[in-house]
């Protein structure tokens, strides 16, 4: 037995000037189930709301319809009022007789008739409203940050400084990412390690940050506020607690000729090694593929000589499972390998290098101590050619997008070169200079105007070697496409920024979307740039798209604020507009037949398979179950289900069809 009250708002003249509100009120009173109907000048005003509350009590109403403006405007207001009046807020509906009626139609009988119809729809709907409670989900206030580049470091520090514990998981033996390899950074030319190292140390010392280096995420289950992360700690073969980072092992290890990853192969390292002197943690790792002991069973020199007896040849990978409430993805990027450039020699010329190698050559902490020496013979190159857009904006190479950072770092490289080699000449082949940031274009102009870097507009077609020099065949399109041939001592390719090799796999592990180039996709390109479509998983840095450091840091702090905001709530409450699969007493259990069409249709992976078991644990039936933490209430599943076993609260089949039946 419904007792519905209908409240018709005049909205001053806004509604009453066009719609005959008295007629609507009268019509409402005739609708089955309506026991009370009034019209009033301003329903949203204090007296209006008080009137609604009082009526609920006095008339013992169990549902109300407010015919006024758009629900997108005042639905929360009237639902709160209804709750104060003593009914469930979800038993209050609004009929939009302003935006959808009085404001868009002429005054007259037809418009009033429409208003009456709109009221009738909502009366039919409200009669079938069930009391709903907002969904409350607990939150584990601990964050997982994946990737320890500048993005991950910044996000971890910001979240920890806001008071929540963080697990920082880094794949390689040290945090720092690409930034730790950089020499100086645009647009200020400050030394990269000088600004990064203190942050790395801060991460290591922060009481709320637990660092997992040389570790990977194996699995992520659960949903926002309630994830379960499975982390694999790969065996370093070192007891980290005992090791004091003295470095004796790497000095004494007989295997010495392994190309050093940190120096981009420009120097060598041992089989047991700390990636670079400022590494965090400053603990070595044994490279199993190259250690003599693991290859032949003989050696163990490191074990014998380690003063703290920290070497553990029998150490195994460890698996840990942690509860976390939010995840920040900060796994960064890679650059296109130089052997992708067939026209520039497939990477076979030693003096055709990429930007990252140049960073190591230019770095004071690099293999040459910052002196410009070319890799082939250590000579100082007198003419260096830089090739911008190497692989970027190149459909043929599968990268049609602009890599965004290379115009700037190429200008930086050319400038650093001119500073280091007096009398040398840097020439940059470019297509456009994209320097759209604060002080960026000024930086590029400085390279040209003050440091004498020559910019030639055009792409290079081929690089080959002749008499120990590199011949660069390019073109100057500003001279009417005149071919230009330069004999250079070194060529630097500004190689395209690409997603990490394992990005697709990781995206699938985390159920986040990715673009055609395997960069992780943001929830909205403009308004939700640090969120993914999966609630509780956020993005920072170059794993989303090519980014420089300022942008990376800004985005990391943005992601951290989203996490902190989430963690500041006592628990998650969400509108209960979600799907549910019906449950029936045995032996039916549910009308669901387990076809899982709904599961395939759901854009949020919110539908799970649930086994209904008897006391012996035998599976009696497999049915669908909606995870309320993941469901966003789109209703796609409902229209997919043939047995109507799944329904959407607040927009149920019963309600929608009742509206339709009253047309």
């Amino acid at each position, binding site marked *: 037995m419904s007792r519905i009250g209908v409240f018709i708002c005049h909205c001053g003249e806004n509604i009453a000037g066009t719609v005959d509100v008295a007629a609507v009120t009268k019509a409402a009173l005739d609708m089955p189930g309506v026991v009370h109907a009034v019209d009033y000048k301003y329903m949203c005003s204090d007296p209006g709301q008080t009137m609604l509350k009082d009526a609920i009590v006095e008339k013992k109403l169990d549902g109300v319809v407010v015919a006024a403006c758009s629900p997108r405007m005042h639905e929360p207001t009237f639902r709160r009022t209804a709750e104060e009046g003593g009914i469930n807020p979800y038993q209050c509906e609004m009929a939009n007789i302003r935006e959808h009626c009085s404001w*868009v139609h002429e005054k007259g009988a037809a418009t009033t008739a429409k208003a009456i119809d*709109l009221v009738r729809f909502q009366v039919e709907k409200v009669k079938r409203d069930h009391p709903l409670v907002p969904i409350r989900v607990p939150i584990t206030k601990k964050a997982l940050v994946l990737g320890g580049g500048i993005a991950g470091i910044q996000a971890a520090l910001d979240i920890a400084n806001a008071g929540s514990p963080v697990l920082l998981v880094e794949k390689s033996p040290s945090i720092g990412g690409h930034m730790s390899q950089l020499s100086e950074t645009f647009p200020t030319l400050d030394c990269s390690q000088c600004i990064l190292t203190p942050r790395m140390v801060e991460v290591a010392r922060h009481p709320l940050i637990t660092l997992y280096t040389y570790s990977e995420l194996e699995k992520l289950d659960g949903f926002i506020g309630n994830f379960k992360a499975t982390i694999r700690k790969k065996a370093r073969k070192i007891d980290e607690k005992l090791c004091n980072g003295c470095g004796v092992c790497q000095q004494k290890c007989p295997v010495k000729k392994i190309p050093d990853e940190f120096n981009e192969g420009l120097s060598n390292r041992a089989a047991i090694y700390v990636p670079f002197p400022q590494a965090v943690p400053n603990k070595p790792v044994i490279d199993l593929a190259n250690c003599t002991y693991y290859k032949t069973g003989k050696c163990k020199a490191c074990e014998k000589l380690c003063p703290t007896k920290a070497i553990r040849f029998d150490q195994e990978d460890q698996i840990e499972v942690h509860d976390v409430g939010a995840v920040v993805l900060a796994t960064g990027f890679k650059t296109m390998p130089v052997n992708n450039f067939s026209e520039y020699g497939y990477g076979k010329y030693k003096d055709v290098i990429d930007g990252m190698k140049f960073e190591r050559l230019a770095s004071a902490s690099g293999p040459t101590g910052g002196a410009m020496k070319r890799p082939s013979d250590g000579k100082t190159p007198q003419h260096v050619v830089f090739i911008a857009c190497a692989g970027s904006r190149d459909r043929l190479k599968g990268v049609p997008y602009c890599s965004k950072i290379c115009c700037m770092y190429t200008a930086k490289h050319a400038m650093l070169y001119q500073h280091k080699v007096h009398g040398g000449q840097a020439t940059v082949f470019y297509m456009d200079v994209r320097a759209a940031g604060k002080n960026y274009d000024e930086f590029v102009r400085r390279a040209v105007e003050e440091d004498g870097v020559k910019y030639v507009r055009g792409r290079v077609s081929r690089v080959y070697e002749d008499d120990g020099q590199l011949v660069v065949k390019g073109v100057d399109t500003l001279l009417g496409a005149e071919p230009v041939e330069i004999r250079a001592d070194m060529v630097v390719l500004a190689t395209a920024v690409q997603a990490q090799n394992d990005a697709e796999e990781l995206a699938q592990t985390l159920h986040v979307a990715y673009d055609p180039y395997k960069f992780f996709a943001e929830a909205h390109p403009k308004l939700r740039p640090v969120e993914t479509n999966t609630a509780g998983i956020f993005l920072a840095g170059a794993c989303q798209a090519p980014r420089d450091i300022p942008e990376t840091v800004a985005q990391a702090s943005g992601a951290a604020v989203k996490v902190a905001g989430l963690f500041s709530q006592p628990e998650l409450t969400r509108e209960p507009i979600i799907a549910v699969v019906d449950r029936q007493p045995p032996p039916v259990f549910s009308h669901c037949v387990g076809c899982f069409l709904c599961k395939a249709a759901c*854009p*949020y992976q919110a539908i799970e398979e649930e086994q209904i078991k008897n006391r012996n644990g035998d599976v009696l039936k497999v049915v669908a179950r909606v995870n309320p933490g993941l469901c966003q209430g789109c209703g796609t599943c409902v*229209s997919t289900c043939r047995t109507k076993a799944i329904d959407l609260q607040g927009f149920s089949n019963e309600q929608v069809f009742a509206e339709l039946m009253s047309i």
Partner: protein
Amino acid sequence: MAEQFEPKITAFVCNWCTYAGADLTGTSRIKYQSNVRVIRLPCTGRIDFMMVLTAFSRGSDGVIISGCHPNDCHYTSGNYHARRRWMVFRDLLDFVGIDLRRVTFSWVSAAEGAKWAELVNEATNNVRALGPYKEIQQLAAAGID
């Protein structure tokens, strides 16, 4: 002058784009014909075939289905599902003998107030020209739903 036939149009719209777009038509005070009745749904993905049939059998002479533009769906891919189903829909509607000229599919975003008004006017005029949808109502009376 004989009284002009006034069709009944039922519109299924999503909450995030088209409903909001229609609100904007209101705040911009753009006038359109009053024949349309809006059924608000969270997403076009929520619409099912039976809803459209019911609308017709209950006396609608035309139906509008409108949601977010592709790629703009509030629910990521909801409207893709809807679109894919529309193809099937069309065939089904055709199969049960619904006159497809009476069904208008469109996209109206929250910023397209004027487009909503045009859409309603166009659909209303088209259906008005087609006349009342007697066939389906007769069938309905005979009990197809």
